């Protein structure tokens, strides 16, 4: 399963990009029972960045269980830094907090695919 997300960091001196850390516990995906899903490969892929510095990224999660109807994505650590578009981003500092998103899953499409297979 793939989750698409966008991230935008408030403009600050020397800081124009932010990315969640992807250790075992920094970025967690849990369902309504608190069952934890592994984030595949521990990597985030940046798809595009627009003029405002808003980045569109994806990350992979192991297949969700049949009982899951609601997912909660929690990020506790963000890496902030400066990216000039050429070299590798320069890490400035980390920001910590609790950025939390919960959403429901519409499984009707999945079901159709499974049946036709």
């Amino acid at each position, binding site marked *: 399963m793939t989750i698409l997300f966008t991230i935008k960091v408030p403009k600050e001196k020397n800081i124009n990009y932010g990315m969640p850390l992807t250790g075992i516990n920094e970025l967690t995906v849990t369902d309504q029972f608190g069952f934890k899903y592994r984030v595949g490969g521990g990597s985030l892929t940046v798809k595009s960045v627009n003029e405002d510095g808003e980045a569109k990224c994806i990350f992979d999660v192991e297949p969700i269980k049949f009982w899951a109807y609601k997912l909660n994505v929690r990020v*506790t650590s963000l890496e902030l830094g400066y990216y000039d578009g050429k070299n590798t981003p320069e890490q400035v500092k980390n920001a*910590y907090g609790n950025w939390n998103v919960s959403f429901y899953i519409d499984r009707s499409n999945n079901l159709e695919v499974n049946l036709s297979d």
Partner: protein
Amino acid sequence: MTNFVILAIIVILTILAAFVYRDNKANVFKAAGVVITIILIFFVSLNIYFSNRMPIILKDSESYIMNVNEAKSNKDTNVKLKKVFMDLNSINMTYWVSGKEKVVAVELKRNPDDSKPINKFTGLWVGGRILPESSFVGMSYASDEFISPIYAVFYLSDGSSIPFEIRDRANVKDSVRIVSINKTLDYNGSTLTLNKFYKGLNYSSVGFKANFSPSSEIIDMKLLVNGSEMKEGSHGWSGGGDYFTGSFGFDPVSSESIKLKVINKQLNRTDIIELDMK
């Protein structure tokens, strides 16, 4: 040791409580209540016991554990730093968190205002609303001197932070040492430079630089302490191409007379380097 005493008292009290309830011919609910309390107390005390334990190898070094017991709060969240074990280039801490927010990360800093930490421990989620949750954090860092005071900054899930200043009150500084070696071993063009010997309370290690990957199939390093050999415990390096840096790790040594024995398995060559501990 005090943990054992507390644990023993708790166990005795729970057994006594169970006997009192049995003599009163308690009903089912009361019995269930007792069982649940015992289980709760058991797990809480287990948690307290294990989270207060420091991973210390040498028995003598346990006297360097500092009982800090310093509590600080931020809005509705309390963080209590319990015990601290400072070592050369590493620090171990036990702490309690209670209140609304959780601790999500701990950073080590030279100065409280530094934006870049010496090391960080992220991905934590420690804290309890009613009962405090205790936890342990251990971090090492790279430095050529013993750092005191050092600052441990606890970051909370609401974005705020609680800094603790940690001073070496146990006089660790006089017991740890960094000894310069600066010896280059030439293996037919492949060189291994031993830079420094780190004599910590809970470890000892030899820092190196090499132009080849010094895996354990090629290089075998031993410590000669008072005539007996000490095998290598861990072995880590990073780099690539013809530049590698890393360290050979050993258990802690309390003796002052230490020699290094470096064996090159491919060339069957053994070098013995005496350390000038002063």
